[in-house]
């Protein structure tokens, strides 16, 4: 049973791309969420093994969901064009940051580090 990965990404094409990267890497996509609210709802239903999060979602920044995930010990991979990488690292020291646009290999490496 391969690990479930949650994706939070509001950009459609990017979401598709990440989904395929995740699946090609041998994991399952638990859910692809485009908003904070849907992310929180998804977590409520099923806690993933890992989460690839864009910072800015349709209804705001992803932090409330990231906090819940972080608290639950879920490894986080921030996949974001958001400039404030330092802020992210300060807030979630354990998280990995893959700035957009990041290559599929980078994402794969991050996923394998998080789930390996």
């Amino acid at each position, binding site marked *: 049973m391969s690990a479930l990965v949650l994706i939070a990404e509001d950009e*459609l094409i990017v979401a598709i791309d990440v989904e395929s990267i995740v699946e090609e890497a041998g994991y399952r996509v638990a859910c692809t969420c485009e908003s904070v609210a849907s992310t929180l709802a998804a977590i409520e239903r099923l806690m993933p093994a890992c989460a690839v999060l864009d910072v800015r979602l349709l209804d705001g920044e992803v932090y409330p969901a990231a906090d819940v995930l972080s608290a639950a010990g879920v490894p986080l991979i921030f996949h974001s064009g958001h*400039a404030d990488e330092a802020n992210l690292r300060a807030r979630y020291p354990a998280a990995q940051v893959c*700035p957009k646009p990041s290559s599929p290999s980078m994402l794969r490496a991050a996923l394998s580090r998080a789930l390996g």
Partner: protein
Amino acid sequence: MRREDEGGAGVETLRENRADAVPVIGIGASAGGLEALREMLSVAQLPTGCAFVIVQHLDPNHESMLAQLLDRASPLDVLQCEGGEELKPDRVYIIPPGRGLALREGRLQLTDFAQPRGLRRPIDDFFISLAADQQANAACVILSGTGADGSTGLRAIKEHGGVCVAQEPGTARYDGMPLAAVGTGLVDYVKPPGEILGCLHGFFARRTGEPQREAAQLVADHIDDMCATLRGAIGHDFAGYKRSTLVRRIERRMHVLGIDSPGTYLQRIRSDGEECEALFRDLLINVTRFLRDPEMFEALRVKVIEPLLDERAAGEDVRVWVPGCSSGEEAYSIAMLFAEAARARGIANPVQIFATDIDEQMLQIAREGSYPAAALADIPSPLRERWTVPHGERFTITAPIRDLIRFSNHSVVKDPPFSRIDLVSCRNLLIYFDDALQKSVMPILHYALREGGYLFLGPSESIGRFEHLFPALDNHAHIFARAPGNPSYPIDLPANDRRDPAPSPANSARARPGSPRAVRADVAIQRLAEGYSPPAMVVNQDGAVLSAYGKLSRYFDFPVTRTGGSNAISLAKPGLRDVLGPLVRQARDTGKRVVAREVSVSSDYGEQPIEVIGEPLGEGTLLLIFRDRGPFRPFAEDDLTEIESGDDHMEALEEELRLTRHKLRTAVEELETANEELKSSNEEMMSMNEELQSTNEELSTVNDELKSKVDQLTVANSDLRNFFESTELAVIVLDADLRIRSFTEAATGIFPLQPGDRGRSLADVTSRLEDAGYLEDARQVGESGEPLMRRVRTRDGKRTLSMRVLPYRTQHGSVAGATLVLTDITDALSMEDDLATERERLDLAIKAGGIGVWEYLVDSGKVLADATNRVLLELPAEGDLSIDRVLARVHPEDRVEVEAGLRRASVQGEDFEAAFRVMLADEGIRHVKSFGRVTSAKGRTRIVGTVIDITPEYTLAETRALMLREMNHRVKNLFAVVSGMVSAAGRTHHDVRSYSEDLRERISALGRAHSLAAPSGDQPAISLADLVETTVDAYRGLGAIAIEGPPVAIARASLSSLALILHEWTTNAAKYGALREGQGSLAIRWHHDGDALQLDWIERGADLSGTHEASGFGTLLVTTSARQLRAELSREVEGDCFHLAMRLPATVVAA
């Protein structure tokens, strides 16, 4: 050292009565003198008949202004002496600075000071020359001053019969000199300055008002009575003193008292004990000093003092007698010499000194041993250091020296002498005695001295006819040794009564009834014996003459001096000589009266028959009486010749020699007396140094101050003149009558004044001013004393002037006129206008710019802020502000930086620049920027600055930064999207060409869709029609495309997805549907359906078989996009109609 009577007779005869002479009044003054001189001379009433000479201590380095100052104050002509002036009445001559002054034969002479500055005594010097030159015609006045200059000089004035006046010490600014003068006891009048002239005038008027010679004669007539009165009152007999001097002194006293008649004066001294004392003091004027004639004292030390110490028997005292010691200087001098010699020998000083005088007052001074410091100059420094103790202006003789001397009241003439004396120092005493008194004193001195003792006389005194008693030891120093042997002359002390040594004046005024009568009896008998009895003499049994009465010269040949043998037998003339021997023998032997008759006495010219009676008087003495028994029988002519050629020739020569010698001696004595006079004057001049020194120093100080004041005044005056000439201010000074006193150069621009206009009334002068109101103004100010100010215009109206009228205040504060000050303010006024305009502009700028202005006073911590500043910082609109209060408004995070900036500015002077936040009351934040610059004025540091609100700019900048971040984000996002599309398409395409074509089309579609969004990026909505148009635009040539629908705005977030769906549908239509090969038509319609938006995509007329079958990447994109949009898609094919429907939720539509 002591004169019991001063004033040489020789000098006196030189110029006795100059009835026409102008009295010369010497005035000595020092510190505070100017005031006293002014007061004294201002009351002068012309003609005074006197000439005045002022000797003031002056600073030698400065010109003196005394003459100008006094000339103004006095009606007399005042001039500074230049030397050689002949004294004229009603003139005042003033000593020039740096020179001394002397008077010779009525002419003033400038002298150079022999002493260094500080030791000079110009007042004494001048008084002494004045006294010597003018005698009784001289007067001296001593005014305010420190020190004691003048005190010695006044003594000289008195010696020569002049009059002395001292300023009343209480009225003197500096009472040192007047007190010293009064202290000498010689001052005739003590008066306030204003009364001195009157007093002197009275004195000289009395003098010149009477026929002098006659008065002198009158006084001479009374002099015996006066001497008797004095003797009765004081106990001292002046009968043996030089007559002329006595007469002069008594006359002077009479003038001082204003008594004309000697008889009245006699009455006065008979009844007035105090006047007796005063006369006594006047008669005993003293001049004395330490070690007078130093070279003589040196001889005394070597030839007398040291031998006395060396040769005395062990344990024996050396006894010294100083008769006429006066105030003791001579006695102390000798005591110090002895003490010094004994110290050098390391032995105890064995000397005992008896110092005597008849003046108790002087003795009192002598006993105290305290003298003015000026006298220190006479004492050589080793003696001075060892034997004197200075006390400020005086010094005292040390106790060891004082203990050596016993001062007592004793008259050398009258009282029994001391005996067994080793040294008698009797200097300058004898010369004031007349011959008879001198003759009686010498044997007394001889008696007093032990054998081999020494006599030390003054430089002009001689031993006279007593060489055999006192052989000279040192002729030059006037030291004599006492010859051995008893005196062969009786010591004839006056047989009068002894009296108390120090009688009180009251006692002395009492008469003694017995004594005058006894005196008269003696005189009667003497007179009887000399005039009315036959000549007689008393001889002893050997014929030696014991006394003689009457005219014996006819019978005896007496030698002129008493030094020859005195045997009556040997002295008898031929004829008598033969008889006298047997007669004496017979009378002696028989003890009975014996007579020798018919004795013929031969003389040079004839024979005299006489008889001689010898009568034994007991004790081996015999009275011889000679009686003429007939007329004188002259020799015949022949006999005369005969006798002349005989033995008598030798005797005649001898007689002549004796006469010549006698004359010579008299001449020598007179010369020496005159010499002594000159010498004493000379010495006194030298004795004044030290007092003058201190006086001079103080005076130079005072003078320096005065000079500096004068200098300052000169500078001030020059400044004022320069100011008047150069100032731009038009100033006109008016006196109380509005006459022009002075004006500045600039004033001539308004009033055409000439230098000669000073003194003219201002009303007579035209002016360029519009109105003449200034005259009234000046008058008003002159009366009220209140200044006023107004503007005036020139007549041509071009210039405006500010006129200030100020009261002219005198030094005493009263108003005497007015000062007009006119200032041209035309330029100032226009400048003021310009300035006001400028200021207005600036204010406007500040207001428009919303600039707040502040000022921080660093020292006091106060802050001044204008209204804008207060508003910006939300400070209270009114009231003082402290820096703390202002800083409290600054955001806490910025406060430290602002404080540091202020500190740097105030300490290092850097400009202050800070941007900070202000916490607003509504919890907002205002960004402000402040700039300040340090200015230092009067040592106080201020920072002046501005503050502006930069909140809008700040916000703008913030927004820009935000947008940049956003853009950055979007670009990155875009990259991610493109990357995503690349990889997603890669998964479905196998043909690279179609893959890249599709990809480019999609990216291009996305790009077009994005270009619909406003460049600013924050446009919330895009028109749906535009989106559709843009999407299908490229395919318009391929078929008929109809687009229809109400205006709908799409939310920006939905743009990409919607664009992708539309793009996929369009490309499908082009590949497989209605747009393929240009056969069909496409209609795109939308309409609102409730909240939702219904979009229909209808393709017709083509072969639609393959339409939208493909389920590749395109389908995935459409599906996913629709999901993202929450759109519902439906698909329907009816024949040649292919219908795609999309129901978009409300969220897609922009609000």
